[in-house]
């Protein structure tokens, strides 16, 4: 249940950004979560709905953009099918993750009268 600690960090960060930008009310958060980030999306939403109360995020919507995992050979750039052995047949090189482990706060939509 580390989703609760992720949400606590998320709300802290939004609070900091709100202070920095004179934000008064947060309407929506856009986050990006990778398939291999180890984050369960339903738990993340439940944790957000629970923890947002009485914070700057009270009433805010959590918009989650999911990112599927992708691996490629660092030498020949060949991509790997899901579930494949993560070593390039041609080059013998171990695959590198191209995307899929993101846990990113992308954007905050907030009322900021001074911006």
């Amino acid at each position, binding site marked *: 249940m580390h989703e609760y600690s992720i949400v606590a960090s998320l709300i802290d960060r939004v609070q900091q950004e709100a202070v920095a930008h004179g934000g008064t009310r947060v309407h929506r958060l856009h986050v990006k979560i990778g398939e291999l980030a180890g984050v369960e999306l339903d738990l993340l939403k439940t944790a957000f709905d629970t923890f947002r109360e009485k914070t700057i995020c009270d009433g805010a919507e959590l918009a989650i953009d999911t990112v599927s995992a992708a691996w490629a050979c660092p030498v020949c750039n060949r991509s790997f099918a899901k579930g494949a052995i*993560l070593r390039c047949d041609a080059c013998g090189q171990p695959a590198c993750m191209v995307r899929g482990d993101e846990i990113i706060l992308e954007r905050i939509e907030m009322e900021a009268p001074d911006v």
Partner: protein
Amino acid sequence: MCETCGCGDPEIVPIEVQARILSDNDAQAAHNRSHFEHLGVLAINLMGSPGAGKTAVLEATAKAAAGRLKLGAVSGDLATERDADRLNASGIVSSTITTGSACHLDARLVHHALHHFPSNESDIFFIENVGNLVCPAIYDLGQAANVVALSVTEGEDKPLKYPVMFQKADLVLLTKVDLIPHLDFDVAAVEDALSRVMPEARMLKVSARTGEGIDAWLKWLEERRPPRTGHRGHHDHHHAHDHPHEHAGDHPHEPH
């Protein structure tokens, strides 16, 4: 106020952030890493299910390394100090991080434990994480390497079921291999599963009970040890990086 039509709706502005949500943990982990590197200590984050044999492997490691290497450990435990007691008895200087209901260690908990640790003379420092194949994988603690203990009684498919944990591993210790004759465990199947989630799949077969594989494990550790730095025995709190540094309040900072 909406300036386009005067409708009275508040103006909503998008603030671009594009930052890792766990960036505070990352910064604390970088701080821990600079401590370890400054002291010339190899820090290992040892993860695995409850009952995978993490503590038993460390006990066997202590036995094999006795007189050669100084070992230290912190053990994450929800409720008890049993693991640290076992490790202290085996000759590893140890303390417990009691996590309460938290299912993983984070960099702040490890930092706090480091500042209260009885010794900074360790050659190798093990961070024995809370038994859990999910949550610990996503928190950087400042370790040099991640090691996952997987016991033969857990089944060959665990790497495929918990890909995040195994993808982050630098080494998998297949534990309790002395039990293989009594089980239908297929070593080739677990090697195949690992190769599909771990780009540089590396696995060592060990038995804490018989000592099988412990020498190979010690060799793997020795190969990763940083050069000794001569900074031990005193704590001047050097930082290789520059970020605000706040302690829990019980650690007075000496001026550099």
